């Protein structure tokens, strides 16, 4: 299926990939039900979305929206400005994403500054008369204040409903200011999963920033990532390759040269899927189609494929051999120290597949894990990228594998099922519950922490650190009450409400 870059509105994940947000079973079964394993599915599913059975229950807790992902990508391009065309509440995100931006800049040894994000601050009268004039004003303010190379515009639920002509204003201002003014359509209600927000940002960048007549740079590799520490530069230098980090903390110039690179890689297919596929489709920049670089099997295969595509096979083999030997002694020690420990992963989809592999390299047992969503297929549709099958084939099944979109009430039962010693998380909201259950969490703020060979060691060391925290969490657990009723805490099946509502409500609960 071709990525459609003709319209300013990105196609949502569920439209393109058949994304689901609620599922429970064995990882092996989920991989079988997904598109890759079924092979040619065109007959049953048509050209677009794959269909997986998905559960839907009556009880949901606050999730995340696409606009937040636009904020944390477009809002983190260093010489751009992001305008949030919204009431002031969407602007709340400026606080967290500023903190992440500042800390990310510091981690990457870049000059620390506040992010450049402006909210149009729509009020009640704008809901009646439209917010077009305010958007135009904020675009002018952005220009006057920061003289950015690019202005991004994030839409909101409110502007989506009142129907402001954001595309029209953007085109008009682009002509006037002579810089790209890029509408990013990311209304929260338009997609059931927030990863559509990644795609919205990447859609806008490929359409309006990336150089259309590229001069190829044969040693440049696009790395689609977030704010993680700079581990790719030394790793790729071993192959005489240079790194082009995008989107967060990148400059507009870095984004312009995306079309000139020799290859595109990422740390997580959930994040990189759309842009990597679009760059290959439009500009012939090959996306590295291999397992993700986690654990020995994944990292070996990933490096070999990158080396093959960039014609550096010999260098890669030497590096792989050196790294295996280098980390072996400490890995043996870590395996000894972590023997018998049980871990649980609760992160974004493809990233979790990688982390579980690393845990198993370390000898940690993983009986259960959850992902916030599941994409049955990524945009390339290439089976070599089937990260879930790679996990199951190389490291075995995960018996309790769940898709749960940050639903804390389910997390209780999910953890009880497998009783882990610790959890690995990204994204907020779940670790606080684990803490109150006495289970420590390793929050992986630096997404590169567990990547590659050194990542196996890094994660092992971090797990030892957090296991020591257990004292804190167990003490807390003994002195805290959860907000859930005992009836719910006693449920064996965290998805019971969804299953009940599917069967039709047998009896109405008494309310009081």
């Amino acid at each position, binding site marked *: 299926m071709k990525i459609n870059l003709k319209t300013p509105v990105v196609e949502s994940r569920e439209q393109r990939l058949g994304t689901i947000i609620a599922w429970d079973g064995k990882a092996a079964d989920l991989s079988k039900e997904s598109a890759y394993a079924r092979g040619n599915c065109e007959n049953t599913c048509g050209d677009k979305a794959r269909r997986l059975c998905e559960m839907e229950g*009556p009880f949901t*807790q606050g999730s995340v929206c696409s606009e937040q992902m636009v904020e944390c990508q477009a809002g983190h391009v260093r010489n751009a400005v992001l305008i949030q065309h919204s009431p*002031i*509440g969407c*602007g709340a995100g400026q606080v967290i994403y500023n903190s992440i931006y500042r800390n990310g800049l510091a981690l990457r040894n870049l000059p620390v500054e506040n992010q450049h994000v402006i909210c149009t601050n729509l009020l009640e009268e704008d809901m009646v008369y439209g917010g077009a004039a305010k958007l135009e004003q904020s675009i002018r303010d952005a220009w006057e204040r920061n003289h950015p190379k690019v202005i991004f515009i994030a839409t909101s639920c409110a502007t989506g409903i009142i129907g402001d002509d954001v595309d029209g204003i953007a085109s008009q201002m682009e002509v006037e200011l002579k810089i790209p003014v890029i509408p990013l359509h990311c209304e929260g*209600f338009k997609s059931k999963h927030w990863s559509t927000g990644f795609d919205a940002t990447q859609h806008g960048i490929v359409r309006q920033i990336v150089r259309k007549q590229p001069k190829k740079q044969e040693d440049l590799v696009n790395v689609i990532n977030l704010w993680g520490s700079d581990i790719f530069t030394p790793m790729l230098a071993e192959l005489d390759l240079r790194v082009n980090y995008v989107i967060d903390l990148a400059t507009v110039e870095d984004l312009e040269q995306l079309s000139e690179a020799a290859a595109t890689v990422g740390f997580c297919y959930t994040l990189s899927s759309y842009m990597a596929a679009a760059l290959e489709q439009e500009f012939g920049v090959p996306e590295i189609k291999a397992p993700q670089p986690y654990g020995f099997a994944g990292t070996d295969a990933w490096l070999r494929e990158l080396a093959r595509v960039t014609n550096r096979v010999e260098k890669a083999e030497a590096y792989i051999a050196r790294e295996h030997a280098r980390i072996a002694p400490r890995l043996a020690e870590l395996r000894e120290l972590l023997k018998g420990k049980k871990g649980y992963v609760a992160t974004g989809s493809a990233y979790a597949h990688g982390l579980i592999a690393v845990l198993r390299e370390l000898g940690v047992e993983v009986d259960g894990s959850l992902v916030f969503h599941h994409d049955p297929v990524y945009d390339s549709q290439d089976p070599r990228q089937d990260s879930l099958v790679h996990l199951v084939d190389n490291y075995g099944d995960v018996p309790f594998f769940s898709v749960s979109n940050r639903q804390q009430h389910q997390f209780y039962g999910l953890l009880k099922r497998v009783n882990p010693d610790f959890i690995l998380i990204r994204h907020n909201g779940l670790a606080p519950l684990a803490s109150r259950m006495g289970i420590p969490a390793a929050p992986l703020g630096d997404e590169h922490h567990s990547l590659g060979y050194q990542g196996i060691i890094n994660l092992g060391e971090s797990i030892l650190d957090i296991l020591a925290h257990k004292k804190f969490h167990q003490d807390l657990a003994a002195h805290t009450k959860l907000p859930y009723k005992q009836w719910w805490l006693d449920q064996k099946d965290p998805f019971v409400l969804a299953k009940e509502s599917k069967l039709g409500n047998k009896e109405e609960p008494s309310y009081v």
Partner: protein
Amino acid sequence: MFNLEVSHKTNSIQQIRYVCAIAAMHSASAIPGVIPIVHCGPGCADKQFMNLAFYNGFQGGGYGGGAVVPSTNSRELDVVFGGENRLRELIKASIKILDADLFVVLTGCISDLVGDDVGSIVREFQDQGVSIVYAETGGFKGNNFTGHELVVRAIIDQYVGDYDGPKKQGSVNVWSLLPYHNTFWRGDLTEIKRILEGIGLTVNILFGQESKGVAEWRDIPKAQFNLVLSPWLGLQTAKHLEDKYGQPFLHVPVIPIGGKETSAFLRKVTHFAELDIAKAEVFIKEEEKQYYHYLEGFSDFYAEYWWGLPAKFAVIGDSGYNLALTKFLVNQLGIIPGKQIITENPPEEYRAAIRKQYQTIAEDVFTDVEFEEDSYAIHQKIRQTNFGHKPPIVFGTTWERDLAKELKGAIVEVGFPASYEVVLSRSYIGYRGALTLLEKIYTTTVGASA
């Protein structure tokens, strides 16, 4: 790099200092045992929580806030066909799963734009005896300050209800700092309760862990009076309670910090509530003894620290802390006001009275205040201020970290967002909080010496 001309005021807000009305879900979860239910898009609850309660002092979500909050996570179908059924389903399920004394339903932009009749859905549950209320808090309707008053009013009108029984002499309802938005609200409310009890009052503090939850809210109508301890927030509530229950209210705009201001405050309350003056004075005297004992120790440092201390200050923040700090810095420490900017967009009707407070900040000191919400304009104003021969100390937020460096001054993060402060029970007000504030100010200053 910066255009130093302050351009005309526009709608743009760069680096926000308040959020929208639905963030008043925190006013619900700030009451022990109360859980908010939000009817809005999928990201709204997370946005408000992560920014007000996490990257603002890392306060945490507490029992019923944070990632606990049920949300309809509205989708396109709810926009096209309305979200009423989805809300009904979510309320039913919430009652089944969550252990709450009271649910507060708050609506977001989507529901308020498509016109869901949330009131009639909530009434269905109220009619069945469920403790549940609702407030329409769509993001375009106002900020979290006005949202707070909507939530308070919803609980009073829909849950507490009518009352015409006797009043309890010597008891007070306190309406003061905005929970969670004010980074130090928990410790501060604890100190307010402590000192009011000290002079002999029974205190309904209403929010925070010192509150007895909904039982305390049900006692609101029985209180002798309402105390509004803030420049304007809570006045609407107090006027409503005056109409509804015939309760008088005392409005004290300056939240007291330090011995002088706190003692004056307590005497004012003692007088208004007709408390036993002798008993109150015993408490005041004992507190002052403690306070001035520590202040005396501090004075060695303050009088003869060799390496210089800031002489001028700027305060950027919402009116509650802004006024309180200005009063303390001018009157207790004798620091010279440089620039005060109020950032929460107080309703126009209150602004003249707030301004007057600054103009009479001390008998011999006149200063002024500006109202501005856009950090770009705020920072330009600070850059244009003449702080004299040495750099100022800035009382502000995370947004001012780089600005303070640019001015070669010090920064104390005292308000939303305070992303580089970890705050548990810390208080900056009253007798005890003032001492903590002094420690913070001068540890910051001295810490930068070498």
